[in-house]
């Protein structure tokens, strides 16, 4: 793999309508890491994610993917994305599970003429997320957890190097969450870089190997094992409940 960091965020500042959303944020993410980005609501997590996806231009500073600007089309091909609230909930049109995954193929051919190789990849990714045998089933009949697994398969069909997930389990029940995290861990072990964005520090600390705590600027960037209750989490989150969860 290349020696350059997969993601390099350098002195990133974003100002919107006169308000500072991100202030001089710098960090790197290397190939194969499993990173959690944690912070309070409104702390700039989603803004940071959109910058890394190349969908938001920095006011100052830069975001690079394999040394290229994040909005470079080549950079986008390295990235898979699973959004916070999956918009497909509004989508009521008939669509099968394999068709959902096929919409992730970047340069498809004419209608119904995805190449055999591309369909094979679609089915391989469904197999990878534990949805084998459901290809022809309706996407609308799936539970929240199953839908998110299909959306992961969609994100993986372009063979990305890094997978971003933005609060992926906000509408998923507890047992499905455990299966979901097991899947992310397996994908990471197979070499995929995973970046999980969430407001839940307790949960993320159990999953990832490194945590970036963000509230406009980087509050902490450390290994999960270095996290301590001695830190002033109350000040960081501005929410006593989050601290309580962490201290379990």
């Amino acid at each position, binding site marked *: 793999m290349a020696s350059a960091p997969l993601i390099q965020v350098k002195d990133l500042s974003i100002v919107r309508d006169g308000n500072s959303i991100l202030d001089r944020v710098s960090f790197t993410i290397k190939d194969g890491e499993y990173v959690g980005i944690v912070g309070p609501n409104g702390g700039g997590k989603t803004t940071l994610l959109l910058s890394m*996806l190349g*969908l938001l231009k920095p006011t100052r500073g830069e975001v690079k993917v394999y040394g290229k600007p994040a909005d470079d*089309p080549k950079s*986008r*091909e390295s*990235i898979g*994305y699973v*959004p916070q609230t*999956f*918009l*497909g909930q*509004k*989508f*009521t*049109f*008939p*669509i*099968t599970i394999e*068709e*959902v995954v*096929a*919409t*992730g*193929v*970047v340069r*498809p051919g*004419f*209608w*119904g003429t*995805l190449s055999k190789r591309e369909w094979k990849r679609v089915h391989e990714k469904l197999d990878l997320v534990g949805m084998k045998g459901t290809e*022809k*089933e*309706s996407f609308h009949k799936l539970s929240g957890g199953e839908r998110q697994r299909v*959306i992961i398969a*969609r994100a993986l069909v*372009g063979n990305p190097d890094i997978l971003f997930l933005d609060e992926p389990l906000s509408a998923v029940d507890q047992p499905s969450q455990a299966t979901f995290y097991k899947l992310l861990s397996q994908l990471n072990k197979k070499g995929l870089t995973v970046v999980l964005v969430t407001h839940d520090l307790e949960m993320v600390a159990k999953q990832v190997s490194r945590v970036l705590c963000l509230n406009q600027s980087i509050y902490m960037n450390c290994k999960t094992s270095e996290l301590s209750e001695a830190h002033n989490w109350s000040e960081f989150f501005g929410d006593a409940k989050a601290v309580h969860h962490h201290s379990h």
Partner: protein
Amino acid sequence: MSIFEYSFMVRALLAGSLIAVVAPLLGIFVVARNTSLIADTLAHAALAGVGIGVILGISPTWGAVAVALLAALGVEYLMKNHRFSADAVLALFLSGGLALAVALVRVKGASINFENYLFGSLITVTANEVWILLLTSLAMIGLILAYWWSFLSLSFSEELTSTRGLNTKMLKNLLAVLTGLMVSQSLKIVGGLLIGAMMVIPVLIAITLCKSARSSVLVSIIFALLSVWSGLIISYYLNIPSGSAIVLMNVFWFAAALLVKGFGTFKNS
């Protein structure tokens, strides 16, 4: 004498069949994106184009095409750049288009039968118009098929589509322009007040009966063709406007699909 011995009937069947293929192909994405009213909106704008064509002394059809395309881009622009809701923008163009159309036609006097453009008329379709419709339909079908997966992705989730590096603004503008072109070309057969139904009702039938997006395409086209053929024949024998008959047949097939689906669900319960 068989109705197919009349050349105007053959022209109407050919033109209607082309519309029956293109309208649901686009309608799928229009319905999936929850913008079903866009066809009606652009059709009303196209009616204003008919009026402008009459005023300028050019072909009303070309006037309709030009104004429908401008309206399509205008709708997308206002939805993207202002904090207006989609239905409010569509209502603006819908009422504005019809108001302008009626005013322009009244100013010029009764040099055309405006009702033909509102409800469709079999006998006014010329051979030249069928040829133009054939060429534009082939171009539209080619473009829709080329971008089919991208349009499906856009309809499924704009956010996910943009993160794959696809140009969502271009895709939305292309869909709007294709819809404007299809609608303006269909005025004489189906009529400006009824063309929206040709894009939406066959798709509703497909939603009722299908599980996959690809089978929805085929099913919606089959029912659109059935509606056009049966509607034109009914229009001829009962002497009612073709657009009205075609839309009523669409509604009939939709009701039949609901019944079939309901019967299937009842049987399996």
